[in-house]
């Protein structure tokens, strides 16, 4: 299934907001939200790789991008 795991929105910005505005905010929508019941025989990561992904199942893998880079 094709879906995005991050959603964006534009919060209201007031001229009286004291902090520099963040014009785009985002939140996670991880893959489990889109899978009602995982089908049988879905693709797997190799055994040596699953540990570092945190799951054996490719359809459940959701990377979390670093926020620091954006400054």
């Amino acid at each position, binding site marked *: 299934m094709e879906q995005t795991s991050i959603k964006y929105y534009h919060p209201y910005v007031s001229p009286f907001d004291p902090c520099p505005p963040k014009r785009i905010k985002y939140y996670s929508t*991880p893959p489990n939200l889109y899978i009602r*019941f995982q089908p049988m025989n879905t693709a797997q990561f190799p055994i040596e790789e699953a540990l570092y992904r*945190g799951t054996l199942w490719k359809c459940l893998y*959701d990377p979390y991008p670093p926020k*620091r880079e954006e400054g």
Partner: protein
Amino acid sequence: MWLYEKKLQYPVKVSQCNPRLAKYLIEQYGGADGELSAALRYLNQRYTIPDKVVGLLNDIGTEEFAHLEMIATMIYKLTKDATPEQLQQAGLGDYYVNHDQALYYQNAAGSPWTATYIQAKGDPIADLYEDIAAEEKARATYQWIIDLSDDPFLNESLKFLREREIVHAQRFHEAVEILKEERDRKKVF
């Protein structure tokens, strides 16, 4: 009963002595959506949920104890051999006065762990929806800790734990789907 296995679930590594990160991580040790709460919540619900999903609660609850040990390991390594001055600078002066380097079940703001973090409604759907919510909240907490952390090794372990929350939430959703099924309706009435 349980057997202890003398290994961590994931090879936890931290890059440097960093008590401030330990202060944040304690949220997942003794906080509302932390690993202790999760383990006790699921294992406690096993007794009053249909047999079909007891195994899942049993096994996720057991995995949560492995995660608790990972968090403890991170805190242990981040604070090991830190001086009282270093702890004080990291905002852990109050903590040091009470506990020295000992681990304590409290959240990042210092509130001790409490059973009020866990509900037990006895209604299978209500309990499973609580579990799903707990997994999503724990996932969010890991995100916010990763956002604050500049330790690349620690972040590998934290991303692992975040991903486990996603897998657990998926399995709890499936448990709800299993309990929704009409298959066994006649046996009930």
